[in-house]
């Protein structure tokens, strides 16, 4: 149909933004949701995911505008393209939600996560842990004679890789923040 030859995404609010077909392929998407920082808003977002059976792989939230009382929630979720579209539409109709951005499809984005890893040990393992930390640009933020706490920032994959290397060297505890993300450019 000729009238349907409209460039997808050519206008922000066009219904033609929608993906064309139902597919079974699971995709991971990073969503940035700007909300009013009011009581219960995080519960609304999480309740939407649990109530409708969507996945949350990672979730971070903090107030980003103290005067305007706005918070930014970054959610990494997995689903078929249809489910991802549903999630965005469902998020969009929550009353205190101002903006929903799909950073995975809206162009390039930077994603970063911070992790703290406690590695315990002595001797060669301790030296090796410190050497690898240097390669990964992890900082030592706490130290005893038998342990380090490393602080590392990067993509979730980089943190996974660092944690995998630390495991045989005495990794005893990990704390991760979840992903924060912003689109690249202006």
């Amino acid at each position, binding site marked *: *149909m*000729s*009238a*349907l030859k*409209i460039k997808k995404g050519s*206008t922000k*609010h*066009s*219904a*033609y933004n*929608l993906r064309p*077909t*139902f597919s079974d392929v699971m995709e991971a998407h990073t969503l940035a949701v700007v909300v009013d920082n009011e*009581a*219960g808003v995080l*519960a*609304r977002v999480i*309740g939407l995911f649990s*109530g409708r059976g969507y996945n949350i792989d990672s979730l971070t939230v903090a107030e980003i505008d103290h005067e305007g009382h706005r918070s930014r929630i970054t959610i990494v979720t997995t689903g078929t393209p*249809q489910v991802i*579209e*549903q999630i965005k*539409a*469902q998020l*969009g*109709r*929550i*009353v*205190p939600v*101002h903006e929903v951005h799909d950073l995975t499809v809206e162009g390039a984005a930077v994603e970063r996560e911070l992790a703290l890893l406690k590695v315990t040990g002595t001797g060669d393992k301790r030296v090796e842990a410190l050497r690898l930390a240097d390669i990964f640009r992890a900082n030592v933020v706490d130290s005893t004679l038998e342990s380090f706490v490393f602080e590392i920032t990067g993509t979730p994959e980089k943190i996974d890789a660092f944690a995998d290397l630390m495991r045989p060297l005495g990794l005893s505890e990990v704390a991760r923040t979840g992903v924060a993300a912003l689109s690249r450019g202006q």
Partner: protein
Amino acid sequence: MTRQMTGAKMIVQALKDQGVEVVFGYPGGAVLPIYDEIFQQNDIRHILVRHEQGAVHAAEGYARATNKPGVVLVTSGPGATNAVTGITDALMDSIPIVVLSGQVPTFMIGNDAFQEADTVGITRACTKHNWLVKDTASLSGTIHEAFHVATTGRPGPVLIDIPKDVQFASATYTPPQKAKTSHYQPPVKGDMEAITALVEAMEKAKKPIFYTGGGVINSGPAASQLLRELVESTNFPITSTLMGLGAYPGTGKNWLGMLGMHGLYEANMAMHDCDLMINIGARFDDRITGLVSAFSPNSKKAHIDIDPSSINKVIHVDIPIIGDVAHVLEDILKVWKARGRKTDKESLQSWWAKIEDWKKVDCLAYKQAGKSIKPQYAIQRLEELTRDHDRYICTEVGQHQMWAAQFLTFDDPNRWMTSGGLGTMGYGLPASVGVQMAHPDSLVINVAGEASWLMNMQEMGTAVQFRLPVKQFILNNERLGMVRQWQELLHGERYSHSWSEALPDFVKLAEAFGCRGIKVDDPADLDEAIKEMIAYDGPVILDCLVEKHENCFPMIPSGEPHNKMLLGEASTKDAIGASGAVMV
């Protein structure tokens, strides 16, 4: 001029400023200050229900019959939890309701105080939005915002939880005009590119169909008018969901009747075989689609909906249009007329010929014979004898609801109140109370089954107290008819707990409530009984004993597509596969 007042007074003032005339409610400890204010004024009428669920259903009936938001006032704890079923019902059917609930004082929240419940937590999933107001200064603004949210975009229920100390404290009242404008402003105009694409598809369509839903009615009377104009001028056939009955007249020449699980054969066959489906304010509910993978396999589908999350939720559509039905229909008509009012008339003629063939199946046929009243016959007689009245119909949920949808004719919107999405037994009686409040001089009938009706029968007390002459037309088969029907078809005729034993004597029950009771069990006496019910100046319970084992047909068995309809008892054998039995 700034106006200092208590929170309780502020609530009543805000309701007045929002144009509220009626509040359905039930008092309790946490709302006493509000009730004290209600006592001292005469602008807002308070209808004392007998159970908070009844208050919400009454408000729903009122809202549907007027296109205005319904208002409910309940106390904390059990008052709020009792309202949850009604609130969920309103959410599923997109009915604008504003619920005001009392809460324990702010300094006691979280202490497991007497009649404390986490009301905003409990109702978060069943409201469009809710608020806990923690200081009186923000109370009036929140109430105005609540009315805005309930009635804007896709309508729905909202709840404001108001602690008792907030009701006692004083602050400055903000009138609606001065309230902060809400950022919640869903767009109402559809995308013109998509609308043009739809018009282009309409011009070429050989087998088009309009499939309309409750969204047309929610959009207001203008939407129904525009729909009628569009149907008349294109000569496309039209079917509707349960929620959309009345948007296009039931006596209109393009009307195919309701579609779906118990919809008409011609409507479902036309949906299955069409080449262009235009969904206007419906949501591809599972009662409509049947087996999704075989749903209308060869059609291009357009979907007009104000809620973006309804698009592509169940069925992939080719032309999605996000916007308010009235606005979008206006634009469709404009574009279609500007392009020369084109349709493929020749193909339409053969499409109509095919539809006429399907109509010949006469899928609603039944035989009234013998000494017992067939439920279909009872509803048909009700239709005959009330058709010329200024009539509003409510229903409960079950077989009688489907028969009412099949056999009653609705020529106007806002005349039909039924629980569609949630399927709430006990909806009809309180809803009829709400409708009668809105239209005191009209004939308001609740078509009921005896089991559903018993679920909220306490509301007869409300009807009697407020002199609301609601007519309770109970099709009494002494069974949970729809459950029984499924057990017959799906569970080897093992009728587990689907009969109504120890039923009350409905005539005596009516007398006990102080209204009129009529009982009828002979087809020969039916007309007289209905006439007596209509003529009586006051609420009536008509106990109409009907055939006990009548099944509701036609029926699309669960897990089957539209073209696999069951038409009568003869064709039901082995009709439902094992996978279908999983679905309800």
